[in-house]
């Protein structure tokens, strides 16, 4: 999968190129907004990673231009601006996700992966299947190997997100943002406890655990 990184901080860009390449992405780098725009217009990418503050053409304008031209490639904004309204402007300009610097590397990879895979499941699904785990989105029921699992509404949403990103690492922050829709930073490991409750429901009594902890990153649902 091809990723375009538009970032003027060359050291940060080099680290990103290396990290994403190691995670299996084919990475192209543009050092400014104008170069980023022409590279994006000239190539096929699954994800754009765009810094908001760029020389020549700022990240917001670059993405707005691409969106006007009909380019729907997912965009992950990177920014040192972490204020809530900055995030809102970023998403309004056509961004799909917003990551505030400094970030853990695992966080960046997990988010790029999530955006890259998002395109693959274009059609509307009514049933999600991961291994022997099955989720009926209309009846709001979950079965594993034929046994029904009783889930609270939030646990259902959490599992749905994990199933939609099966095989990918998802971070705690991503879960808080996408499942609870909050962007603050809880000091207590609230997400871990929710995961462990969910884990006890879907993995207890089965010989193979599906919900795995990824060290230093977060969690992954494996088939």
């Amino acid at each position, binding site marked *: 999968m091809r990723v375009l990184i538009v970032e003027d901080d060359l050291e940060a860009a080099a680290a990103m190129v290396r990290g994403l390449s190691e995670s299996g992405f084919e990475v192209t780098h543009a050092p400014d907004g104008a170069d980023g725009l022409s590279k994006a217009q000239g190539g096929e990418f699954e994800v754009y990673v765009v810094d908001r503050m760029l020389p020549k053409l700022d990240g917001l304008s670059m993405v707005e231009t691409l969106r006007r031209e009909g380019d729907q490639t997912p965009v992950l904004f990177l920014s040192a601006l*972490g*204020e*809530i*309204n900055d995030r*809102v402007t970023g998403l309004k300009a056509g961004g799909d996700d917003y990551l505030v610097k*400094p970030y*853990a590397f695992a966080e960046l990879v997990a988010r790029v992966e999530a955006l890259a895979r998002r395109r693959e499941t274009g059609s509307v699904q009514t049933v999600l299947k991961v291994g022997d785990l099955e989720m009926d989105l209309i009846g709001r029921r979950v079965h594993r190997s034929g046994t029904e699992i009783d889930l609270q509404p*939030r646990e259902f949403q959490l599992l749905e997100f994990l199933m939609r990103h099966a095989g990918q690492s998802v971070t705690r922050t991503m879960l808080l943002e996408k499942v*609870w829709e*909050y*962007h*603050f*930073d*809880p*000091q*207590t*490991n*609230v997400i*871990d*406890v*929710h995961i*462990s*409750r969910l884990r006890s429901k879907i993995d207890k009594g089965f010989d193979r655990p599906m919900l795995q902890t990824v060290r*230093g990153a977060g969690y992954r649902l494996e088939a």
Partner: protein
Amino acid sequence: MKLPSLFRRTPFRLTLLFLALFAAVSSVLLAYIYVATATEARRRADAEVRTELTDLTSLYNARGQDALNSALVERTLREGPYLYRLASAQGKTITGNIGASPITNFHGQTTWQSFTLTDTDKSGQVVQRGARGVETPLADGSRLFVGVDLGDAEAHIKRVSMSLWGAGAVVLLLGLAGGLVISHNVERSMAEVNRVVGAVQDGDMSARAQVRGAGDELDELAIGMNTMLDKLEQSMASIRHAGDAIAHDLRSPLTRMRARLEVAMLDAEDGRADPKTALGIALGEADELLKTFNTVLSISRLQAAGEAPDPKVFDAGDLAADMAELYEPAADDKGLEFQAEVQRGLLVKGNREFMAQALANLIDNAMKYTPSGGAVMLRARRRSSGEVEFSVTDTGPGVPEEDRERVVQRFVRLENSRTQSGSGLGLSLVQAVAEAHGGRLQLDEGPGVVDNSGPGLRVALVFPAAS
């Protein structure tokens, strides 16, 4: 500061301006009165002269020159303002009380003219007085002149003008004096304000203007300036304090991190230990530091903006329920009883993210300081005043009353909390969020001492209801 010259002082200049205006208006008025009075006097004189002339000519027409002559003789003997002269066709005086006709441009028709009479008054001084007269030809070719001395009317006009000028001069003088007094007073009051401004310019932030107690706009200015200086001094102090605190509080974790990295480097050089663990811990510490910086920034921006960004109306009850749902498992995991009592329909206007962060900080604190076996309770309700109140009550050690104001300040951590992780910014952020929404933060005692724990803490976050 150099004192401005008298003419540069505003009140004095205003006085001069008004006096000039007054003088101009008075002059116009005076001129009008003069012209009106003079015109009226002439009109009356003309009417009198005409009546006299008509009387005399009709006498002449009816009874001839002799009758006119005797009438004129009789009239000139009377003391009066009238002047008469009957002259022959050749211009020689026949009768009259003036020697020559003052009408200079007589050409055989009735002619009116104004002229000047030279006379000697009672004290023997020569005076010139205005007069008005008419000369008309009679049937036999002789000429009759009748005139009137305007002296009285003129004197009257002069008296009126003189008294008007006099009054004007008095008003001007009084005005000037008043202007000087006012100017002096204002100058004295402004000097106080100027003194304070000068002192502050020279760096003395404690200078304050004296309020005279007159309750006028100068007092208002002084009070306003004092209040402004108070606020300025406060915020300068708090910035200084925050700066010191940031430097002080970030130095220890940085020092710790540095030591850890140094040890890791030495260990790695000697091949004694894998530096990965130490690097991992250092990374975590760096993250904590950055988080602290971000929180400090958020607090400052909220305080600087004075209002929450992107405010929307939403149900605070929903938010509280969300938070309860998010935190309940973690509390449970820590062996704490978690309860939530949440009313719905508590509409507030604000930034949901910031309010969520504030509420999360309160729950985080409660969970952090309450020992296992205790309880944490989250409430969201409408106060009888209509305000919306979130409260988090715990059964932890609480905060002694004398420290409650202090713990809200940035980087303040109480002695017995030093063992816990945290930056000492949690409550400061909550406070900043509360203030940015026109709300407030209140710390009280919790439910009291139960089973060796307590007395607990009750923290209330109160917001105005959305209208």
